[in-house]
């Protein structure tokens, strides 16, 4: 087990290195000068002053030198300083990460809570109208853009007198208010997810139901509930965990669009701002942290298989 973990973690290193390199290159190809953006349209500066500023931020050195320098500092856990706000990238990310993690976990939670029962129902129900309703619901969920749904939720909720757009507070300060602020955005994010997840649940339940050991269990005369809990659900959970884990990792990249609509201070907005403002250090930091989280989530997902299905061994 520990050897497995070690190998997996080691395997993540080249991936993260690739991500860092890719983002480093992409952002420097973008037209537009970070300093000029920082100064806006109202400031007049002499070329000498610009050159001086460039030197201060290390932007005057050759690309490879900047790259090596950056790699060196990243290895030591130093993500640099934001060009735009002059604050440490690590600090900024640390303040945004809780929002995003909470939002992502809540969204996946809501999605799973809806998709698992719905998927099972779709697999076992013999009623045509249940099938039809679930199918339509799933397809509708898949085909609504999240920014659209987010807007609808904000407008709808504000019309029926629900207080929307509360100020985000971390869960450890005030769990209740935190949930209150994040619930609607999580629903907006979770809907599409739920629809996708439901397809997988249904498919895997159908597959498991056809397996020999389940037929045996039925034949032995075990009560339906026991068969279901012991065999069907447990096995059906494996693909669910895979997809949920994958989606969670994806959402940790920040749900830019939903954050914009709900005014949440998450990673997505940090990243969008960094792209629009050419804040090199910040974008690099955000992408690196996101990719790391993604890799870690996938690892946790794989470990979860073992917990669900003891037959799976890591070696």
């Amino acid at each position, binding site marked *: 087990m520990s050897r497995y973990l070690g190998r997996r973690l080691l395997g993540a290193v080249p991936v993260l290195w690739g991500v860092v390199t890719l983002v480093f290159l992409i952002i420097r190809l973008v037209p537009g000068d970070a300093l000029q953006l920082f100064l806006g349209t109202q400031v007049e500066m002499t070329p000498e002053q610009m050159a001086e500023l460039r030197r201060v931020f290390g932007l005057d050195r050759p690309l490879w030198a900047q790259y090596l320098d950056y790699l060196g500092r990243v290895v030591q856990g130093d993500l640099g300083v934001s060009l735009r706000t002059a604050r440490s990238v690590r600090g900024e990310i640390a303040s945004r990460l809780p929002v995003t993690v909470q939002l992502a976990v809540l969204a996946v939670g809501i999605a799973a809570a809806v998709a698992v029962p719905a998927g099972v129902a*779709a697999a076992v129900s013999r009623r045509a109208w249940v099938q039809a309703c679930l199918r339509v619901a799933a397809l509708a969920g898949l085909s609504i853009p999240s920014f659209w749904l987010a807007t609808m939720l904000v407008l709808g909720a504000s019309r029926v007198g629900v207080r929307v757009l509360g100020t985000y507070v971390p869960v450890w300060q005030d769990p209740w208010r935190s949930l209150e602020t994040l619930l609607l955005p999580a629903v907006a994010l979770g809907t599409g997810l739920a629809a996708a997840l439901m397809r997988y649940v249904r498919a895997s339940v159908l597959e498991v139901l056809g397996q020999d050991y389940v037929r045996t269990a039925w034949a032995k005369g075990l009560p339906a509930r026991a068969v279901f809990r012991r065999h069907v659900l447990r096995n059906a959970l494996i693909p669910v965990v895979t997809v949920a884990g994958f989606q969670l990792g994806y959402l940790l990249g920040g749900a830019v669009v939903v954050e914009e609509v709900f005014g949440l201070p998450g990673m997505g907005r940090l990243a969008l701002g960094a792209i629009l403002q050419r804040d090199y250090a910040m974008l690099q930091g955000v992408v690196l942290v996101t*990719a790391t989280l993604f890799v870690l989530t996938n690892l946790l997902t794989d470990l979860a298989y073992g917990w669900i299905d003891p037959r799976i061994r890591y070696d």
Partner: protein
Amino acid sequence: MPPERRWLTVVGGAVVLTAVVVAAVGPALWMESALVMRTERLLEGPSWRHPLGTDQFGRDLLSRLLVGARPSVVVAFGAVGCATLAGTTVGVVVGSVGGLADQVAMRVADVLFAFPGLLLAMAVMAVVGPSLRNLVLVLGLVYTPQFMRVARASALAVRREQYVEAAEALGASRWRIVARHVAPNAMAPVLVQISLGLSLAVLAESALSFLGLGIQPPVPSWGNMLSEGRQFMEIAPWNAIAPGLAIALVVLGFNLLGDGLQELLDPRMRPEGL
């Protein structure tokens, strides 16, 4: 296939076919009326003259919807086409040959995979500038690793099947095995991925339009119509409802068609699609 499922597949196919035909002829027939502004008819509701109403500039929404089909359809098919071609080829090949090529390819896929997709698309669009072609290429790039993984996984599975081992034992060349046995049998899961990818690409185009990185105005696409229409949701909802429905309908069509085709190609598999 039971009759009602066959019927649904036909409906899905008809929707997709309609979208493709509209995309092909739309711009030629209705571009002029999609662009002309009528200041005396701003944000009018549906009427005989304008069955879907008019937008902020008094442009006819029906014409815009018909013209806007092209970018959405082109982006969906183009991006997924690129991703399928690149991803499946590489996936099947490395899955079959294994070794160093496999290792390298999968690490590259991991990097692209770990890189947040929308961020990648946003950053690349900011570099190369928004255009239909760039949109296709960027989304194609974003979706490639998914196809690569799916194709590789089935290639690995197929390789262990008896008929492949038999072919190997008979001395068939490696490439021949890949082309004749592995690739065709890896297609079923790829097909599922395609129908999912088509839907995702249509939605991604609208999300990028929302952020200002999609199809450029005044040329309409469903994505930019939806994101422009969103701000009129409360005072002129038809502006957003029409493109929203169009997107939902086509996504639905892709899914129905995908499910049906999959069942047709691989009768052993139980219907997956809900």
